[in-house]
Every structure is written in structure tokens, then in C-alpha cells.
């Protein structure tokens, strides 16, 4: 079959391609510049980053924060949304409305609220990323987790599954863990990857609450060293790609639709 594209479609797609690809290519070329001469090509900038202890330190902090946020979110949201679907369908619109609230309360407003409200709370919470930041990130993750999980639960027949499991004598916990969870695994994973992408890129809250995470590290490098900054920019882009490609890969399976966009703006 011969493909015939409309000329206007070709023009639009080429323009879009240029706008979106040129900055990436330029960043790549920039990162390959030699520090001494400012011309191409040397991988020195990448070496600088990869041999920087602070890079690994902050990357680790952000990755662990991501895992912690995902764990808390799943423990909190999976049973809640399950219960709402099974017993309290009237509450579903309430949850859907709650999922829109982080849109009305942007991170910059959320962080000053949290800072004021928890001022004077114990330092194991207030001064630790594992306390303060993780709790804030769970709120940021809620909309994405909700829309993923909600779609996941809707794709399976939870009433029949639950009844069957209860008739066979399983407890609630057992039903949830061994019957329901495997069936919504794709949705839970999709929500988790989006959450990971958010946490790995979140700057506003971490910056105002003065924690050291991966995006804060990138900002610091950008202010001091140009070529390594380009290198770490591309590394960060690669991490987002990895998270989104994993999401897409799971998305082919049943029940993972409904996931939207995350944001680190």
C-alpha cells in the first residue's frame, strides 16, 4: 500500500520534530564539548558526573524516596479504592474530585502550607526527606495512582472475585493480597512508574524545604559547570524515558490504561 500523506500534515510534523529534537541534540553536542577548548568531542563531562560522589548520593536519595512514596501510596490507595469500588460506589466521585485537588493546590502552595503547618514538629519528620518529603510526594502521586488503579479495578469483576474468594474461606487481607492484587498488577505498576517519574524530577517542594535530592543536585551543577550540566540533563532525560517506556510496556497489558501525565514543572 502506498502511503500518501497530506502536505500540510508533513509540514506540521516536521516543524514539531524540529522544535522537540533540536534542544536534545544541542544538549548532547554541548555535553560532548571539551572543557579546555569548548569544541567537540570528549566524554569528559560524563566522567566528571559519574565520578562525582554527590551525583550517586542524590540519585540514591531520590530513588529511595521514589520507592518509599510508591510503597506508602500502594498501601494507602489500593485498599481504599478497592473498598470504594466494592462497597461504597457513591464515594467514587468524591475520590475523583479529590484527585483534582492537587491541580488547584500546586506544589508551591502545598509546600508552604506543609512548612507552616508542621513547623516545630519533631526533627525525625520535619528535617528528614523520608518524613516530610515522602508524605508530600504521596499527595502529589495520588491523582496518577487514583486514575491508574481506578481503571484497573474497573477492568476486572471485583464483586465475583471477592465473593468467590470469601466463599472459599479467605479473609479480607488474603483476598486483597492473593486474589485482587495480582489482577490489578499492571495498573499498580503503571501508577508506580508515573510516581517514580514525578519523584525523580520534583524540584519545587524539595528546594523550598531545603532537602538534597537529584533535581537539586542538577540545579547546583547547572550553576557551576556547564558541560557536566548538559551531561546530567541528558541522564535525567534518560531516566524519564526509562520510566515512561516501562509504563508503555505495561500499558499493553490489560487494565493499565487511564494513566495520565505526571509533572515536574
Amino acid at each position: 500500500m502506498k502511503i500518501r500523506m497530506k502536505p500540510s500534515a508533513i509540514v506540521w510534523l516536521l516543524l514539531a520534530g524540529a522544535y522537540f529534537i533540536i534542544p536534545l541534540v544541542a544538549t548532547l553536542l554541548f555535553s560532548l564539548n571539551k572543557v579546555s577548548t569548548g569544541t567537540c568531542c570528549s566524554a569528559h563531562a560524563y566522567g566528571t558526573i559519574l565520578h562525582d560522589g554527590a551525583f550517586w548520593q542524590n540519585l540514591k536519595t531520590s530513588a529511595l524516596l521514589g520507592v518509599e512514596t510508591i510503597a506508602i501510596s500502594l498501601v494507602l490507595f489500593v485498599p481504599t479504592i478497592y473498598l470504594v469500588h466494592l462497597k461504597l460506589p457513591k464515594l467514587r466521585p468524591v475520590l475523583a474530585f479529590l484527585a483534582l485537588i492537587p491541580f488547584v493546590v500546586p506544589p508551591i502552595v502545598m509546600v508552604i502550607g506543609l512548612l507552616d503547618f508542621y513547623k516545630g514538629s519533631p526533627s525525625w519528620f520535619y528535617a528528614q526527606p523520608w518524613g516530610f518529603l515522602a508524605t508530600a510526594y504521596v499527595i502529589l502521586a495520588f491523582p496518577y495512582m487514583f486514575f491508574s488503579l481506578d481503571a484497573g479495578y474497573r477492568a476486572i469483576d471485583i464483586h465475583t472475585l471477592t465473593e468467590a474468594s470469601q466463599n472459599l474461606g479467605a479473609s479480607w487481607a488474603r483476598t486483597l493480597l492473593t486474589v485482587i492484587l495480582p489482577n490489578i498488577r499492571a495498573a499498580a505498576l503503571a501508577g508506580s512508574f508515573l510516581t517514580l517519574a514525578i519523584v525523580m524530577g520534583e524540584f519545587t517542594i524539595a528546594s523550598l524545604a531545603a532537602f538534597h535530592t537529584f533535581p537539586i543536585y542538577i540545579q547546583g551543577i547547572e550553576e557551576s559547570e556547564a558541560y557536566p550540566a548538559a551531561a546530567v540533563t541528558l541522564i535525567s532525560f534518560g531516566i524519564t524515558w526509562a520510566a515512561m517506556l516501562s509504563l508503555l510496556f505495561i500499558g499493553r497489558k490489560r487494565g493499565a490504561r487511564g494513566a495520565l501525565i505526571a509533572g515536574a514543572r
Partner: protein
Amino acid sequence: MPFFAYAALFLFFPAAEVLIGSFKGVHGGWTLSNIHSLFHSPFREAFVSSIKLSLTTAAAGCILGLAIAYAAIRDGTPRIIRGIITTFSGVAANFGGIPLAFAFIATIGNVGIVTKFLSSDLHWNIYQTKYPVFGSFTLFNTFGVGIVYMYFQIPLMLLVIAPAIDGLRREWREAASNLGANSLQFWRHVGIPVLMPSFLGAFILLFGNAFSAYATAYSLTAGSVPLVPILIGYYYSGNVLDNPHLAQALAFGMFVVLAVMMLLYIPLQRRAARWAK
């Protein structure tokens, strides 16, 4: 349920703290003076430029995003292109903040790759040229910030509008042309009315997206551009303000703008859902 307790503790109470705080005076007691000062310099200007930036990037993002989405989805374009664009949009919509700002600095900053290429090979120094209408170009004011915002605004539009374009069924187009309608009449009476709720809903989403953005503008301009989130950040990251409740009032102002947007969004969302498969 523990979930609601969590939402109360880490979302509602802190948000309420900000809202209540914005009505408090420096020495305690209730006052409207903080809210009042939002309508005066420099806060008024900050709101005006924040809203202007959000409106223009949302409008441009919606129009360009729609054009690109339509070009990618319409008959004749290979399906693989749509797949590539959707995947890339997913990444680009998430690739915001600090790295995005730097990618543009490395591209069209003062010593960016494209800037250098244009000046050395084409003898066109983009920073010293006077342009009609715009004047001189710099990446580090609201205009530059707007250009960078398009990098996440357009992909967001692509992701949001693609299902609506899918909803424009081919049968409708065929039915219209069987009834003797030309392409203009199809758009006038079928295409635009069906797409309109989704389009306006997407516009609000893009507006909020730009209005709440902090990291990109902060990183690009080192916190010097007068946008509302940047001002709030400035006052909270150690810069002393004689009245801490002013920052809370700024936050309250953001909240009001976004809440109004949300109230417009919900009914549009309902209407848009009508044509979804």
C-alpha cells in the same frame, strides 16, 4: 478510613493553614490588608504577568498541539508516526523543570549550540537582532520562559486531545459529504462543535499547568522573573519578608485563580465525555 485521615493531615490542614494565614495580620488578629495588597504593585504585576504567560502558552499550546495531533492522526499518516508521537509526548510532558531549562540554555542560550551555529555560519546573532513587534530576544525573560514552556504544553495538549480527535468518527465525515457538505461545512457544523468542550477543557488544563510551574522559570532566570510562584519561592527560601502572611496571600491568590479554572473545567469535562467511545 486511613486514606481520608492522610488527606486531611497532609493536604487539607496545610492548605487551610495557608488560606487562614493570608487573612492574618503581622501582629495577629484578622485583616484583609494582605489580600488588599495583592491588587497593588508589585504583586498585581506578578499576577498579571503570570496570567498572561499562562494564557498565551495555553492558547499557543492548544492550537499547535491540535494541529500536530490532527496531522498525526488523520488518514494518510502512517500509524507508526502516531505511536512515536504519543510515546514522545509522554516523555516530554514529564520532562520539565531544571533539566528542560538547561536543555534550552545549551541550545539557544548566550553560548548555546544553535546560537553559536547561527552567528558563526549564518552571521546572524539572535541576541543582537531587533525584531519587529518583539524587540530584542532573550531566553531569560517571560517571553523566553514562554518558549520553553511550549516544550511541555504542546505534548500535554497532544495527549489530552488525541482521544477527542479519535472520537470524530470517520462515518460522520462520510455522512456529511454524502449529504453534500464540503469540508468547511463539516468543520463548521460537526467538527468544531464536537471538539469544542475537549478543546476548552484542555485549554484550562494547560493554563493551570503553566500557572503552577515553578522549577523551569526559576532555573532559567535564577529566580528573577516576576511570576507569582517565583515570588512565593523567593519569600520562603530564606529571603526575609516583613510580613510572612503576604506570601500566604499570594498562595491564596493562586488558589483562587486555579479554583475558578477548575469550576469551569468540570462541566466541560462532562460535555466532552459525551462523545467518548
